[in-house]
């Protein structure tokens, strides 16, 4: 099994609907259906939208000094707006699930395999 992170990219001009509106309820229902099916199939690990890029703080540590910048790390046309973490047998299965996300229809979904990091204690002895 491989863990895949779906990075959800939207258009910068995309306005999310306000809570209480019909559009908001529709969005909730669509996302609920997509992630519900993933949970049902046992592939979903986590899924969440992110606050807008303007709310981001980018950090780096150089020579022991922590540097902070307001905003996202890279200026790109699309906005990284959320993520979904799944565990699938292979890329084909991950791609099939990614295509069911509402974000795939309005924006883009980048499918990135997650590196399996083995903690030292878990390594086989010898």
């Amino acid at each position, binding site marked *: 099994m491989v863990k895949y992170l779906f990075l959800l990219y939207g258009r910068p001009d995309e306005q999310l609907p306000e809570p209480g509106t019909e559009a908001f309820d529709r969005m909730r229902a669509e996302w609920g259906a997509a992630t519900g099916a993933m949970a049902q199939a046992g592939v979903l690990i986590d899924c969440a939208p992110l606050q807008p890029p303007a709310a981001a703080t980018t950090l780096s540590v150089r020579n022991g000094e922590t540097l902070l910048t307001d905003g996202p790390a890279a200026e790109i046309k699309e906005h990284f707006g959320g993520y979904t973490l799944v565990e*699938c*047998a292979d*890329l084909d299965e991950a791609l099939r699930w990614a295509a069911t996300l509402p974000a795939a229809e309005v924006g883009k979904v980048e499918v990135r395999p997650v590196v399996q990091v083995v903690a030292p204690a878990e390594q086989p002895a010898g």
Partner: protein
Amino acid sequence: MFRAHWWAAVAAVTRQVGDLELAEDAVQDACAAALAQWPAEGWPSSPRGWLIGTARHKALDRLRRDRRRMDKEAEAMREDAAPHAPGGWTAGTDDELALIFTCCHPALDPAARVALTLRSVCGLTTAEIAAAFLVPEPTMAQRLVRAKRKIRQAGIAFRVPGPGDLPARLAAVLRVVYLVFTEGHLTAGGGALIRGELCDQAIRLARALAALLPSEPEVLGLLALLLLTDARRDARLSPDGDLVLLADQDRGRWDRAMIDEGEALVERALRGNRPGPYQVQAAIAACHSGAATAADTDWREIALLYGELLRYEPSPMAEANRAVAVAMSEGPAAGLVILDTIGGDARLARWPQLHIARAELLRRLGRRTEAIAAYEAAIALEPPAPERAYLARRMREW
């Protein structure tokens, strides 16, 4: 000598060790071992079984040496415990299909799919592939390494796609085979020998796919299209290396056996009643091969077939070809109307064939100045050398 077994061997070993790159290196090692052993110790009863069995051991040796792949070794060793007849290793049909579906996975860069298929499925060397695509060998090596790394890192599975994915994935495979062929066919001028090799490889691939997937009409359609097109190979170039247009080709130099096979395949494919773009293109090629002389060509049928092709692939190229067929059946003016309506397409304006087709129609209409301008526009786009020579000749012949 080993190329006939390459596909099966790489497929079988990849299935067993779960890594394409490792399998390929191991098969390469096994071929080297065969070169050293067979002449001295005699030919094995099953060369393919010998190669697969030996490559498998070589792969396991490499795994043992490579500690970073510890868990994969454990897996492969467990399988190793299963009983098997010595030297009796075979590759299943599914393994061979899994290999080509992996190499043509849509998650890979399209140029890399073509290169990887030529390397892993056909067994061409990196140097040969680099020469065929006119890129430096290190560039091609890098492209192959990157593609194989992506397969491993992204978790592209080594298997035949399920029924839901099959149509799209098969289309990607057929596209790669088609591209291998056109790369060899279109630019027959430079390095004709290597280029001919690409056409041969594409036909081998299509033939093998037709054997593996006999009930897929598009696979038969593609094989038919390649055979019918390649049957004209010898007639396409004059002794001086100039391009000879279809209408001017010596039809006696067409390969009759290939045409017969291609025509039979088109008929068999169309009987499946699941038409597709390759079957339609093969049917068009069959219209040409079935005409005893250029004048006997059924242009009305060809125009209809191009109309059909546009339903699958609405490309300006197909529309331009339809225009030529219409011009042949209804007169140059009718064809010119179609060409002029699509001439505004920016992609097409950079395509020499559009200007050549316009030039020929204008010529037939006696509109000399406009025809010359169209020939010059085609030459300005720097088509391959044989076409350039042909255009210069056409302008002189007026």
